[in-house]
């Protein structure tokens, strides 16, 4: 084994308390995926460009390849595995992405969903332009974004008690 010392971290992940020893250089995305087996968040670049690794930390969107696990000490982290509603039903965004065909290969999807969740908490009824700007840190190679925008609009409508009228294109 490596001789690098490990240090303790303690954080909340999807509502559960987690304590582990990690190397200081362990990236949060590796900690989540390999230590906690939460493989929803993905790695598309490891250079903070693609957003596939996006999770929510204390209410903010964070690219988890950009942060060390030890920096999340004491924080509350939500990954896509923790997105569904408490009663087990799907979050409006999860429903919206399926209804509006907002995903294809699904690799960007966990990051997109988690980014969109924070976007809607900051701006519950965004315009198309605001959505496009709001998800600009998340790349998708498959969909061309048009149906992702609709998926987020669908979710916004649902969370605001409205029915979204448009169909997936």
């Amino acid at each position: 084994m490596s001789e690098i010392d490990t240090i303790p971290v303690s954080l909340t992940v999807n509502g559960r308390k987690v304590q582990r020893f990690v190397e200081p250089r362990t990236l949060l995305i590796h900690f989540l995926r390999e230590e906690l087996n939460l493989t929803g968040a993905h790695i598309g670049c490891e250079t903070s460009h693609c957003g596939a690794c996006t999770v929510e930390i204390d209410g903010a969107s964070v690219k988890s390849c950009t942060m060390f696990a030890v920096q999340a000490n004491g924080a509350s982290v939500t990954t896509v595995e923790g997105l569904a509603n408490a009663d087990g039903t799907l979050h409006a965004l999860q429903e919206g992405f399926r209804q509006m065909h907002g995903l294809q290969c699904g690799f960007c999807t966990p990051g997109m969903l988690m980014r969109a969740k924070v976007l809607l908490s900051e701006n519950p009824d965004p315009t198309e332009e605001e959505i496009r700007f709001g998800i600009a840190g998340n790349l998708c190679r498959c969909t061309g974004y048009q149906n992702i925008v609709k998926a987020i609009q669908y979710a916004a409508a649902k969370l605001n008690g409205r029915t979204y009228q448009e169909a997936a294109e």
Partner: protein
Amino acid sequence: MNEMVITRAEREARLEGMGCKRKRVEDVRFTQGKGQYVDDIKLPGMLHGDFVRSQYAHANIKRIDASKALALPGVVAVITAEELKPLGLHWMPTLAGDVQAVLADGRVSFQNQEIAFVVAENRYIADDAIQLIEVEYEELPVIVDPFRAMDPDAPVLRPDLAGKTTGAHGPRKHHNHIFEWTIGDKSATDDAFANAEVTIKELISYHRTHPSPLETCQCLASFDKIKGELTLYGTFQAPHVIRTVASLLSKIPEHKIHVIAPDIGGGFGNKVGAYAGYICSIVASIVTGLPVKWVEDRMENLSTTSFARDYHMTTEIAATKDGKVTGLRVHVLADHGAFDSCADPSKWPAGFMNIVTGSYDFPVAHLAVDGVYTNKAPGGVAYRCSFRVTEAAYCIERAMDILAQKLGMDPADLRMKNFIRREQFPYQSALGWEYDSGDYHLAMQKAMDAIGYRELRAEQKAKQEAFRRGETREIMGIGVTFFTEIVGAGPSKNCDILGVAMFDSAEIRIHPTGSIIARMGSKSQGQGHETTWAQIIATELGIPADDIMIEEGNTDTAPYGLGTYGSRSTPVAGAAIAMAARKIKNKAQMIAAHLLEVSEYDLEWDIDGFRVKGNPERVKTMKEIAWAAYNSPPPGLEPGLEAVNYYDPPNMTYPFGAYFCVMDIDVDTGVAKIRRFYALDDCGTRINPMIIEGQVHGGLTEAFAIAMGQEIKYDEMGNVQGASFMDFFLPTAVETPHWETDFTVTPSPHHPIGAKGVGESPNVGGVPAFSNAVNDAFGFLGTTHIQMPHDAWRVWEVARRLGLHG
């Protein structure tokens, strides 16, 4: 609900069969973070492999010293070409008939080439070890410009081929020449040019780029020494081909290799080939007795696992004064990089470049392609297109615009004048293809009407005048494209990969309770096969799509197929599904006849079962028939209800489309704003319109990226420039235009359900539409052809060269 009273429409709707915008089955797991991609798989004792890569584009390797790395705790092995030699695995054959170094054998020929494979307990230690390995190089002169590759004094890039004057595709003219491939009637074409009233000639280059799926290439190899079996998980678009290649190389019998392609995070051609990482992981697992995972990072992906395009097409058209084309002559200089590992069907070194006559009725044509080696990454994959079809479409669609400009004709009118007419199908092209079906005039007219083409031209004219008067700094471009693709490779008479004919396959099994499992030789990477394949079966067999499970990617259970690329899934695997379903239906008809005590010929199919002709009350549904197949089959008939089909297509399919791009360019900033993009596609029968439109959106976004900036560039030393998402242009939601989609339907006459495939059309048709728009914007200022990519800097440069900046 009372089953008896439901209407025919309700019965039909319940199936969610072909034509239905069925929501995707895959999304349920993907939206909950429960997809299973390669890097999500962990096996006990798993090790991680990573590469030491060359910092030079061309150099001899004098010495590799791994002693410090091997001394690092957690490092298990370091593999170099020396270790692979005794196994005969230091070189591997390529799909294109060349050989490629798995690990550099005394010499590196492109930057980031694989030199050593480090195996360690985790990825961090592997990375540490890489830093500790010393490689001593002796630099050699570098060739990056394909136009210099065949200079008499050009350095020899492939000493291993010394003295070989013949390659896999005929004679080699020079030590850096790979092949020359020609097709068409040269003398008749030369005559057409000699007698032409008007000719054009232009070098049209399609720059080097990369498919760059969001998930990189990766694998996990696990060799069981006791059983002598290898399990290989990987990002494979063609899992069965990988199994065959792995067996041929490793000598492990094919039945003892289990290749599994789990969920794949996009492919776009990148995941067709066999890469050094796969071979090294397999060897490392055999050597260590433990599972070994290899996951490339983004830089490695962009700079080593393949590339796309790098085609330099000198294009000539002969025509009459009034715009009738009379001949096409194209010469291509193809840059294949350090090794010829293009992923084409084996007999097609330039892919299907001979679709370059496009949608037009050229009486004669000639095409010659010269492939050359350079010190760049090898690969040559079809980035979301059938083999070299994007290059061909770009070539002819730019050239038609250049001809229109020379003739002073409207580019849409010129196309209309030269289209292959509906009554000419099946149409024999001058370069050897038989186009299956089309109605180009109808599609073009529909597109022109939808976008208001004549009004846009009038607006453009007014804007040009205003620009000349100095009232605006914006110029307007209208990009017109009408493309014809050739997809669905392909018929065994002309398509194979390493000798395996390019059929595809489906196996359908109906269970006693009337639900279905079906397996195919194709492999989805986001196309939604689990959804759409079930729709085909639902319509064919009358079982609701929700009761049908589709499984792909496991070579132990799926029938042999050639995989998913080149838009071949719907034309080939989709046909196999329909044919397998029809075998089942034939047997079901016999069972129904037995149950209803009538002759088979007295039965007719109706949505979800067979009914007695003239007595529609007497019905046996497929569900009832399924039960009977296991419970009370007719005497003499085998029990069970399942079928396999291996489909060898009689011909390719030829999807087509009319794309229009309207763009406004600010000559002072070089920024091009896409005002509208309209895409009309004809892919024959439409299986799931929602998924088709999604495919079109995604492909257009890729086309937008390629045309407007995406490029793998090299400096003169062979250093790859911009192999990261910092520099490699992937549009975000902000830059990406809004897409308008439309369609016509001309079924393929030879396909069982008339479908042609659509996934790649938008990339093929999109690139020329954007590029034509940029060229169209500047044309009135005197330009004839502006090379791609059209990023703001280059567009600004064009304006500067034209003296527009005062």
